[in-house]
């Protein structure tokens, strides 16, 4: 017998049409999928409360924004009075203003969160929105808690005139104080983030994360098209476009966001860097006696250093560090894949890791520009060095490059300046630095990442002012003399130890690091731990003085060791 069913109310919508693939998605399924279309992965714009539910621990939000009230400072009216527009937005969203802020936790890590609601007059920022962001930053400073800002906005609120413009300065200075104090600021950029918001607090975080396909920019694409009278390329101003251009650290699907935030909070909440947090290791000890090293022809070492099977930086990072979070971009021009870096954990110690990266296959090598950085690679490295300084994290650098990229664009964008600044940045970085040459140490392009308190090299690597081929051509007038030039340049571990360029040599497995990457990595880990154990106890001022002295002695009369001519006994 048929049962009697009540008709549902018409406004209870159960199905949502995806504007990207046109599929109708069951609402509960969509919600369960965090507002991401299960058919095409389109990320719907989320109501702010739903966004917070997805990211924060249940019930952890202590909302402090209830008292905020937008000001109609100009008595503004367009097609309707601003006061009425505000009342409409308040009725529609159930919020007093378009930003919610308060304290909360993510996986039990405390933080201050501020989240923008695009549904409230397009997420535009006026007095109350700016006040919410600023109060959130001030609260984070007071509590020394990380700040997470979730952005979604068309820009400043026109109806509040110049007062809304001033919110850009007000919020930026509040974020600046957090940056100065080494308090983590993470900005999550969602679709859309534009105008005065993207040109102030939204892009001032230590880490910028965006959702896939979010549109982010200063001027809207239609304004740009209209101004330049050109059609913009596909994907212009998407998060992916910005990532490619070095403006973002990460683009993460919604399902990963909580995990990424948890990891960032954990890494930046490990406390002051101390040797007590270093792990026990079982790698071989560093070699500091040149005579203890096997004797190999320099040219053979060059071949080993260039072996395409040798582990590269990201592989070493995977072996040596836990919870590594790679960060991208120079925030100026481009993402340079020839240099990689991020934050990882060494035992209970958070460290920043930066290194050249080559790849193994032809396509990987091309993608990484054969490990030859452009200026933006060095600028990315400097950004990460500054991150280390801001959070008091030791810096570990891996060097493996034939040299900085010799290209037209690289020169136009200041390759020399980037290398020089990177060298200087490292020289004065107020945290311990350990550098390991893991492959090729090609000249200034290598040194830009190698001004460390301890500079080490793997047994089968080289470090040189020029490649043997370059030296052979210029000085020996014959490219075929490269093996001879390699010997003459004294570019391998025993000679570099004798010259004081290297502080130690990391042993490699028999046949080279490529024969047993885990063992090579274990030796590297042991070396890093040994060096940091020494360096972490040194006061900052003394650390910088010692580093100054380390590089001051090179070539100084009476302080620079010299080598006997080749062929004579050493």
């Amino acid at each position, binding site marked *: 017998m*048929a*049962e*009697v*069913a009540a*008709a*549902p109310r*018409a*406004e209870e*919508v*159960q*199905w*949502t*049409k995806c*504007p*990207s693939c*046109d*599929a*109708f998605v*069951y609402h*509960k*399924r*969509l919600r*369960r999928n965090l*507002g991401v279309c*299960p058919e095409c992965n*389109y990320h*719907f*714009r*989320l*109501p702010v409360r*739903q966004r917070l539910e997805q990211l924060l621990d249940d019930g952890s939000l202590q909302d402090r924004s209830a008292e905020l009230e937008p000001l109609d400072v100009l008595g503004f009216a*367009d*097609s*309707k009075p601003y006061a009425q527009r505000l009342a409409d937005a308040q009725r529609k969203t159930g919020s007093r203003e378009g930003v919610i802020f308060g304290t909360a936790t993510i996986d039990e890590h405390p933080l201050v969160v501020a989240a923008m609601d*695009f*549904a409230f*007059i*397009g997420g*535009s920022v006026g007095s109350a929105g700016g006040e919410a962001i600023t109060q959130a930053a001030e609260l984070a400073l007071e509590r020394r808690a990380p700040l997470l800002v979730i952005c979604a906005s*068309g820009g400043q609120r*026109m*109806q509040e005139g110049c007062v809304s413009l001033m919110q850009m300065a007000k919020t930026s200075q509040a974020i600046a104080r957090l940056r100065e104090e080494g308090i983590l600021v993470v900005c999550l950029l969602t*679709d859309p983030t534009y105008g005065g918001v993207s040109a102030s607090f939204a892009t001032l975080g230590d880490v910028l994360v965006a959702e896939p396909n979010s549109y982010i920019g200063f001027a*809207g694409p*239609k*304004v740009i098209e*209209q101004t330049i009278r050109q059609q913009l390329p596909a994907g212009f101003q998407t998060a992916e476009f910005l990532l490619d251009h070095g403006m973002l650290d990460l683009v993460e699907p919604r399902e990963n966001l909580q995990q990424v935030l948890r990891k960032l909070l954990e890494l930046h909440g490990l406390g002051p860097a101390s040797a007590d947090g270093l792990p026990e290791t079982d790698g071989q000890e560093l070699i500091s006696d040149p005579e203890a090293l096997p004797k190999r022809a320099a040219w053979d070492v060059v071949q080993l250093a260039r072996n395409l099977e040798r582990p590269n930086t990201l592989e070493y990072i995977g072996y040596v560090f836990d919870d590594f979070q790679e960060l991208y971009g120079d925030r100026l021009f481009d993402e340079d894949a020839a240099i990689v870096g991020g934050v990882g954990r060494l035992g209970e110690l958070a460290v920043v890791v930066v290194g050249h990266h080559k790849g193994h296959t032809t396509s990987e090598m091309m993608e990484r520009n054969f490990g030859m950085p452009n200026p933006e690679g060095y600028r990315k490295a400097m950004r990460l060095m500054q991150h280390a300084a801001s959070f008091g994290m030791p810096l570990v650098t891996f060097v493996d490059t034939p040299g900085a990229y010799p290209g037209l664009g690289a020169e136009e964008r200041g390759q020399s300046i980037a290398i020089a600044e990177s060298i200087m940045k490292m020289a004065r970085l107020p945290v311990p630095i350990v550098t390991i040459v893991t492959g090729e140490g090609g000249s200034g392009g290598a040194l830009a990442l190698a001004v460390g308190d301890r500079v080490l090299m793997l047994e089968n690597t080289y470090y040189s002012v020029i490649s043997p081929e370059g030296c052979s051509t210029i000085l020996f007038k014959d490219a075929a003399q490269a093996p001879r030039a390699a010997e003459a340049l004294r570019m391998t571990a025993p000679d570099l130890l004798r010259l004081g360029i290297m502080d130690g040599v990391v042993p490699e497995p028999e046949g080279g690091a490529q024969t047993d990457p885990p063992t090579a990595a274990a030796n590297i880990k042991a070396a890093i731990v040994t060096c940091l154990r020494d360096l972490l106890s040194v006061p900052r001022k003394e650390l910088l003085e010692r580093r100054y002295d380390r590089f001051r002695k090179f070539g100084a009369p009476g302080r620079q060791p010299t080598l006997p001519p080749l062929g004579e006994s050493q």
Partner: protein
Amino acid sequence: METGEQVLEEARASLEEGDLDHARDAFRRALELRPDDVSALVDLGQLLHAAGDSDGALSCFERALARDPGNADALRPMIDINRRRHRSDDALVAARALADARPADAVAVIDVADLALELDRLDEAEAAFRRLLEFDDDPEHEVPYANHGLIEIEIRRERWRRALDLAVDSTRLDRLGRTTDLLAFVLGQVFGAGDRPTPARPAIEQALAASRLEHRRLHAGTLG
């Protein structure tokens, strides 16, 4: 013996988990027990629509609408299905019902305007654009698409003077200059061709339809 409610719960759980085949079978079983259950009819209709069975889907939606004429979950896919089948009249009927049931639903009213224009029902299209002007007035919207719709209607009516007034008014609202081509086209009709290259009417209508679609997407991409 399982009840209709139990089977419906099973079907909805499958739906939520994305097991669409099982959900479809369960809804069919549920409807044997509760043949007039509106939500089950709608859900089954949606599943049939997703599986490409448009006739089966329409049949479910029609049965649901007989009991609940304003059901948005039935009306929205009906607009889609009828549009794909080039049955714009039927699509307009569904869009009209949806816009009546949900007067503040900008997507529904845009659909009415769009379909009425397509069918040359200019009075209805004009009413829909005027409605949009009343409530879809977020200043963040960059394109005065509703004003442009009104100009398009006057062009079709060949009421050039009226079209010219609207175009002049629209330029004041349009900081992106998207009205320029429209204005030039109308001026050309009033005063004859000038030196300025002006897009032909099909190109203008195509650009306006694209602008409406873009605006529609802005609304549709936000979860309420």
